[in-house]
């Protein structure tokens, strides 16, 4: 039993380890077992936390990314029943030693933090982490998985505008806006980061049948030869060939050919 207490995890706890190793009655053995159990559970809860409020620790800290707007989100720790907790947010690029404080989210009561400007390099991997303070206690840091915007962001549908000219329809497509970049200041578009493909679908309302009208990289598409006195609806989506992903569909634009 005494050997068992030499388990490496416990080796730092000298005082406890020295308790009653000389005695051999069943009662003391049982006591030691309880002690061991207590110590083990204590150590498990304390392995990655200095304060032992594991249940304060905000779970599910993760980035949610849409069109490269990268929002850190989390949930309240399980010990938090009411209000009164505040959160502290840090971030860094993978490979950096120092975590940086996000001052806008330092002591926030919200359950999210916008880190778009801190994660502007779309190909780089980032981390975020959150700590809670509640009733005078601090939780440990709770960290996100590694986050690479280019891979994880979800694209919104394209904006679609239609212009009707006689029996043809001009469809103007626009990819979602990128977050404003004050570092580069340049006008980059979503197409710079993915080889985006636009898909345009048209439905002849009298037939109720949808057809692919266009698939390609152009942002202006002309659909010709539409039948007079018919109604048509157009809808579009964005496809990312590199990732084999597509955006949700845009809102429908419907026209009546005179």
């Amino acid at each position: 039993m005494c050997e068992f207490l030499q388990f490496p995890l416990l080796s730092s706890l000298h005082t406890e380890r020295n308790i009653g190793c000389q005695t051999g009655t069943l009662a003391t053995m049982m006591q030691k077992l309880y002690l061991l159990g207590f110590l083990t559970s204590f150590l498990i809860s304390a392995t990655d936390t200095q304060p032992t409020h594991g249940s304060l620790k905000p779970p599910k800290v993760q980035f949610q990314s849409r069109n490269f707007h990268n929002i850190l989100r989390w949930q309240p720790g399980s010990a938090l029943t009411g209000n009164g907790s505040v959160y502290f947010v840090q971030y860094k690029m993978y490979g950096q030693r120092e975590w940086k404080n996000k001052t806008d989210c330092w002591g926030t009561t919200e359950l999210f933090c916008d880190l778009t400007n801190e994660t502007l390099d779309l190909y780089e991997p980032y981390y975020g982490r959150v700590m809670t303070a509640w009733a005078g206690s601090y939780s440990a840091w709770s960290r996100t998985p590694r986050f690479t915007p280019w891979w994880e962001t979800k694209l919104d549908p394209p904006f679609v505008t239609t212009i009707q000219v006689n029996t043809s329809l001009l469809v103007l497509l626009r990819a979602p806006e990128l977050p404003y970049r004050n570092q580069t200041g340049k006008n980059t578009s979503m197409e710079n980061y993915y080889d985006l493909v636009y898909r345009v679908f048209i439905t002849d309302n009298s037939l109720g049948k949808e057809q692919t009208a266009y698939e390609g990289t152009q942002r202006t598409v002309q659909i010709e030869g539409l039948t007079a006195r018919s109604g048509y609806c157009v809808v579009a989506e964005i496809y990312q060939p590199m990732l084999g992903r597509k955006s949700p569909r845009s809102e429908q634009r419907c026209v009546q050919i005179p």
Partner: protein
Amino acid sequence: MAVLQKKSMSFSLMGPLAASCLLLIALWAHEAVGLPITSHCKLDVSNFQRPYFTNRTFKLAEEASLADNNTDVRLIGDELFQGVNRQNRCYLMKQVLNFTLAEVLIPHSDRFQPYMQQVVPFLTKLSNQLSLCQIRGDGQHIQKNIQTLKETVKQLGESGEIKAIGELNLLFMHLRNYCV
């Protein structure tokens, strides 16, 4: 640069000289001492246009990165490229790729399934396509940077290898960036 000049001279009817130059070039090629003519450091863009392999590679990296709790140390980052000019970066990535395949992926090929079994053949193919890729000019800097990477992996032991797998997405993106 010197070879380019010689090449242009060959057009000005200097037959024998041109022939000897060609011989010299052939000899250089044979000994693989700096090949300024064609570098072979090229991958076809189609390699990176197959969503299946892109997704698998990123997924594998994601899985491994979850097991990598060392957020301070990064293998494929600024330090790796420091002092390496752009035309040699494909060669640099080739070296990283070959190291990762031989020393990390193959020994761990039973882990992170099913991604591993799909990604290893894909990366092996890329490695084969770069087999003739050679360094241009003095490669001291490059060798030093690669050595640092290898040593970091060795020092970290098992977790260094997990880290390398967790950076397969970076490897993939840099191969695409510098070799296409």
